Structure formats: structure tokens, C-alpha cells
């Protein structure tokens, strides 16, 4: 291969499906499926036209938000939501820590590991709304059901990520502490905690943020908070109040977002 005998053109060889005929067949299959799928969606164009008008009123409500006429309801909903968010995050994180430690393969004995992993799996597999409906049915309307829902969801989130983080610690640091004759608790306190603490704090702040957003959603199924106020406003066709509520939610989420990312950066 000297001089001009080396080829001058090169094409990337196919990576996934090597056979050219199969490649073409698969591509045609995807196109046919998409065409059929779009064809099967039934659209009622008259209903869409009606909806446009409603949508327009909604957007007008946004453009002229009315903060004042329902302010008492809005502020009460906000206070409920914020209380729910904070308490459920604190309680959720407090319960998550022992479960997360128990769900770390390198710290917990086998049977505890399986128990904690199943708690996490249950908590993660149920979506917040489903849990909220369940708790509302059990404990009635209001923020208590919301608080329980968010605490439960927090456990699955924090405990899983904490456990994964503990499993990825630098084992030699734990080995070093263990070799001094430390007990299991001392190993957790001296070798594991310093390694996972910054991430735990970061995750908790992130979860605080998520819980506030979720509190607005689960309010719609009756779990109290700003979501309930929003639901009422929409039911009464008071789109200007609804617009005001959405703007407040956006503002609070943004403040929480920037606040927590600033804090996380500060902690690293």
C-alpha cells in the first residue's frame, strides 16, 4: 500500500444489521407501521375547533392573570403545598437513609438487602398519582394524603440513589477504617458517610424541588395544596385565576431550581 494504491473512498461499515436486505426490510417496515399508526388516530375536527376557542380563553387568562379575586384560596393552597413539600421531604429523607444503607450490597447482609430493595421497588413502581388516589381514599381529601404520598415517593427515589451511591464508594477507604478495628457503625460513620454526604444533600434538595411540582399535580386528585386550588379554578372556568396559579407555580419552581443548583455547587 504505497503511494496511490491505497483506496481514496471509505464508508462507515453498518454496525447493527449487517445484511443489506434486512436493513431495507426493517426501514420499510418502520415507515409502514408509522403510516398505519397515524391513520388509526381518530381526530374529531369539529371538537378540535371548539377546543381552540377554549384554549384561546385559557391563554388570554394567562396574559391577564387575576391574582386578587381568589387570593385567599391561592395563598392557602400555596401554604399547604409548601408545608406538604417540606415536611414530606424531611420525613422521606429521614426514612430513606436507613433503607438506602440497607439496600447497599456492600454494607447490608443479604436478607436485609432484599427487604430494602423490595421496599424501594414498590415505592418506585407506583406513580405519585396512583398513590395519591389511594391515600385520598384512605384518609380523605386534604394535604395529609398529599404529605403521605410525597413521603412515600421520596423514599423510593432517595433510598435507591443513595444505595447505588454507597455501592460505588471507594472500598479501600472502608477497608482502611475496618482494619483499625472499627465496628460496622463506625465504618458507616467514618468511611461511607463522608463519601456519600454531598450527593445525599444534593439529592434531597433536588427531591424538594420535585416534591413541590408533584404537590401541584396530586392536588388535582384531591390531595390538597395548590393543585386543588388550580383544579377548582379550572372547573369554574376562571382561567384568569388559573393562569395566576400557574405563573406562581412556575416562579416557585424556578426559584427552587436555581436555589438548589447554587447550593449543590457550593457543597461540592
Amino acid at each position, binding site marked *: 500500500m504505497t503511494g496511490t494504491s491505497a483506496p481514496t473512498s471509505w464508508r462507515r461499515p453498518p454496525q447493527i444489521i449487517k445484511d443489506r436486505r434486512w436493513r431495507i426490510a426493517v426501514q420499510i417496515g418502520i415507515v409502514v407501521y408509522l403510516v398505519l399508526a397515524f391513520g388509526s388516530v381518530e381526530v374529531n375536527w369539529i371538537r378540535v375547533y371548539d377546543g381552540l376557542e377554549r384554549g384561546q380563553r385559557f391563554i388570554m387568562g394567562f396574559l391577564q392573570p387575576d391574582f386578587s379575586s381568589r387570593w385567599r384560596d391561592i395563598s392557602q393552597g400555596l401554604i399547604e403545598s409548601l408545608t406538604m413539600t417540606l415536611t414530606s421531604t424531611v420525613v422521606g429523607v429521614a426514612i430513606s437513609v436507613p433503607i438506602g444503607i440497607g439496600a447497599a450490597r456492600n454494607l447490608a447482609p443479604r436478607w436485609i438487602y432484599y427487604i430494602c430493595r423490595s421496599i424501594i421497588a414498590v415505592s418506585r413502581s407506583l406513580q405519585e398519582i396512583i398513590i395519591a388516589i389511594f391515600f385520598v381514599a384512605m384518609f380523605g381529601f386534604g394535604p395529609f394524603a398529599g404529605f403521605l404520598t410525597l413521603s412515600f415517593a421520596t423514599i423510593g427515589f432517595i433510598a435507591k440513589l443513595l444505595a447505588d451511591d454507597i455501592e460505588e464508594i471507594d472500598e479501600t477507604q472502608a*477497608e482502611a*477504617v475496618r482494619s*483499625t*478495628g*472499627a*465496628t460496622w*457503625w463506625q465504618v458507616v*460513620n*467514618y468511611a461511607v458517610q*463522608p463519601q456519600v454526604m454531598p450527593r445525599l444533600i444534593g439529592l434531597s434538595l433536588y427531591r424538594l424541588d420535585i416534591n413541590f411540582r408533584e404537590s401541584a399535580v396530586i392536588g388535582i386528585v384531591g390531595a390538597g395544596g395548590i393543585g386543588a386550588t388550580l383544579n377548582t379554578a379550572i372547573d369554574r372556568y376562571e382561567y384568569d385565576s388559573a393562569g395566576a396559579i400557574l405563573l406562581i407555580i412556575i416562579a416557585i419552581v424556578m426559584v427552587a431550581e436555581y436555589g438548589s443548583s447554587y447550593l449543590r455547587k457550593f457543597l461540592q
Partner: protein
Amino acid sequence: MLTLDGLSKTYRTGDSALSDVTLSVPKGQIMGLIGPSGAGKSTLIRCINRLVEPTAGRILLNDVNLVGLGKSDLRRQRRRIGMIFQEYALVERLTVMENVLSGRLGYVPFWRSFLRKYPEFDIQRAYQLLDRVGLIDHADKRSDALSGGQRQRVGIARALAQDPELLLVDEPTASLDPKTSRQIMRLLTEVCAERGLPAIVNIHDVPLAQQFMQRIVGLRAGRVVFDGPPDRLKEDALTTIYGEEDWNTMRQGEEEQSQAEADARDRIAALAQ
């Protein structure tokens, strides 16, 4: 005095890491453990404080058999064995002082260690040790703010804080430059001499081992193939330990390196003129 008697370790995969190792290390002796990687040096050291569970044999540390001890007895015995690690293994987010005090974990109840309320005596000792290794001014720094050599000094102070009767040292200089390596080895031999501490030092750098060790044991494939003073470690012994080919390439590499170093020195000298 440490005695290993017929110590063997076979991993669950069926790999035999140590077979029938019998040795004793008297008080005050610094023993270097050399051998190619995979020879079982690390396993041997970790079997002694049972970070690795030996499959057979006995380990006697001043007449206590460490094999087969229950959990709390094992913890009590681990206090007597200080360990120093290759990558320092300091808890990086803790302060230097906390790392040194962690050597006392086996002696204090959980609440004291949790609240960092160590007995006055322990704190005084920790300061003395930091002074001994030359880091008294760094006590409140986080340990990841230190350089490699400084971190290894903290590692030494932590091991000594245990008030050990034996030091296990795993490749103490593998991540350090040649000059710092020598300083660390000197410090290690000094503190062992001061306290009459026996030590087992895993080391892959043969010249460094010859310079600092009182006795050298060569491992090959989990067996002791050499045991004697450093000056008896000649060509033929090294060939037995490392195998013909490896030893030749190793020596070649070393020659090349020393030549390159000499070259660099010459060039710097030429520049200085």
C-alpha cells in the same frame, strides 16, 4: 512476634493465591515481601488482619491465633495491627486529624467517635504523631488537600495511632515519585525502629527493598521461594522469584530508566554551565 503456619488461600474461583506459607517475623524486624504481580503479596498481607479470609493455616500474633476469631474478638485483634495502603486509603473528605484519630476507632465507643469527642490522651497522641511525621500544621486541612507524600505520612500516623504490635504495609511507595518514596521508606524504618515494631512491607521495587529491608522474602505463585538478608538476594534468587524472562525485562527497563535519568542530569548540568 508474628508467626504464619501453613497459611493457604484459595479463592472461590479456584485460584490458589497462597499455598502453605510458613514464616515468622520477630519483634523489630522489617521484612520486605517481593514477587511478581499476582504472586499473592497483597493476599498474604490481607490474610493477616483478615480483610481476606484464609482457607487454611494459623496466624499467631504474640500467641493469639487470629484465624477463626469471632466478630468482636477479631475487631479487638485488628486494633493491634496497623495497616498502610498503596493509594493511602485516607478518607478524603475528612480532616487530617480525623483520619489520624480514626486509628483509635477500635478503642472508643461509637458515641465518642460519632461526636468526635475522643479522650484527651488520644488527641494528645494524635498531635504527637502528626508532629513526628512532620504534618502538625496540616491537622485541620482536609486530607484531599495534601500531596501524595503527605497523605502517606498521614496513613503512617493513622496506623501508629492504633498503638499497634505489627505493621502491615502494602506497596507504600507505588504511587510516589522516587525521592518521596525514599523519604517514606526512611520514615517507616525509623518509626519501626523507635517502637521495636515488626513490619511486613509489600514492595515491587527491588533496589528500594534491598536498601531499606532487613530481610527479604520472595513469593512466586503463592509460595515462598526466597528468604534471607538483602545482600543474599542475587541474580539467581531474583530469577527464581520473577522468572527468567520477566526479570530480564525488568532489569532492562531499570537500566533504561537509570540511563535516561543520567542523560537528563547531564543535560541539566550542561544547561547550567
